[in-house]
């Protein structure tokens, strides 16, 4: 397959309490594509996403990123993680650091960039997410939407090759969802490879190249938005879509 940046095969996670959160998932993600993962709560979406950068260590299977099997013993996970950006549902900004320092700490400590270089890039990134005037603020002084845009900027400052989003808008007040989605849309338009867990069906419909539907730790259906929204084959997909779309 051409240009597969990420290949997951037989990827599984069984938690120590016996819960099988993800059950032998196979998935290939091509460079420059947007993959949206949907599915009911508890279906294993977060766990799958978190296994891609090994924040959740898989219990079986493989994660091959740019041709490198991340689970090989001699692979330096941190060296690869820096090439994979992640955005969390609850932002996880560093509360003891200013917005600017949140953006520069990765580039300075991990990429060994000089302070000047890191700050210059960080300020440019703040302009991109529309928060240039917040550089010296602390996370606690920001709204939810602003926090999430900073979190996206923080990940982007590492110049990642793929961005993972775990329900980036579901902790936000409705009026703030738009500002975060518009940053993500710009990113998608710029050709960033993205894997997005979300309940924002409009985003999925317009921006996804592939939609993955999960249920019970498995991928039950995958396809283009036209297929998934137009004529899904799995009855559980239909049922799930009815539920979320009726709610909207």
């Amino acid at each position, binding site marked *: 397959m051409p240009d597969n940046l990420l290949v997951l095969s037989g990827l599984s996670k069984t938690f120590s309490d016996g819960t099988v959160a993800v059950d032998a998932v196979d998935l290939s993600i091509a460079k420059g594509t947007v993959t949206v993962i949907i599915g009911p709560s508890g279906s294993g979406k977060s766990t799958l996403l978190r296994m891609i*950068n090994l*924040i959740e260590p898989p219990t079986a299977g493989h994660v091959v990123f740019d041709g490198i099997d991340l689970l090989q013993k001699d692979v330096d996970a941190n060296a690869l993680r820096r090439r994979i950006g992640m955005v969390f549902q609850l932002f996880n900004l*560093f*509360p*003891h650091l200013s917005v600017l320092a949140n953006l520069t700490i990765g580039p300075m*400590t*991990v990429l060994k960039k000089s302070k000047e270089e890191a700050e210059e890039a960080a300020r440019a990134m703040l302009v991109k997410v529309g928060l240039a005037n917040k550089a010296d603020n602390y996370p606690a002084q920001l709204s939810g939407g602003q926090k999430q845009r900073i979190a996206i900027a923080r990940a982007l400052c590492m110049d990642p090759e793929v961005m993972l989003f775990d329900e980036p808008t579901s902790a936000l007040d409705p009026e703030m969802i738009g500002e975060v989605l518009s940053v993500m849309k710009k990113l998608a338009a710029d050709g960033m490879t993205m894997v997005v867990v979300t309940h924002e069906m409009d985003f999925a419909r317009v921006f996804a190249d592939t939609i993955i539907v999960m249920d019970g730790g498995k991928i039950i259906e995958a396809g283009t938005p036209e297929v998934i929204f137009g004529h899904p084959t799995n009855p559980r997909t239909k049922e799930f879509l009815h539920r979320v779309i009726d709610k909207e």
Partner: protein
Amino acid sequence: MDFSFLLNGRYVGILLGGLFLTLVLAIIAVGSGTVLALVPAFLRLSKNRLFRLVGTAYVEVIRGTPLLVQVLIIYSFFRMPVTVVLGIDLSSFIPGMLALFINSSAYVAEVIRGGILSVDRGQSEAAASLGMGKGLAMRKIILPQAVKNILPALGNEFVTLIKETSIFMYLGIAELMYAATIVRTSTYAVKESYIVAAILYFCLTFPTSKLMGLLERKMKKADAR
């Protein structure tokens, strides 16, 4: 009651000297104890089962036995000739200090461990997602946040240690309790010497607790910046 010994410069000098030594002992114990405490604290946080076991055993044994017993055990292991430096007999000071410092390290270890565990897991996940290694994340992300929880508890440990230094009386170190005993035997003002000692202890512990409370509130405020 007869507090007239307080008008005698010599007795006041002995008491204030004792007060000062008490403070110094407590500061040394909490300072060095905190450094040593990092070892059992990180042992207990380790993924390695054996490390965790060693750390837990250390903390539990020390917290589960009286300080006086620990002091006497260590004292009996360190039989060194009387060596007086700056008016302090090192042959009893060093083992005494060692006991206090080991004792405080066990309590502080728990304070440090609790402070680190209280930092949200999302913080280390975010650090890891940026490619930061465990040590780097600990230094730059976790510890700076943990300190906010650790410092106030460390203040409480300091207050406890101020009181526990009274154990040094048994080793003939001229801390406050020993000073009070000297005053008692030379003036026969038994109740009065002890009451004055109690008041002096309180003069150290009360402002310290207040100061720590203030510090805690200030840091909470800084967090809500």
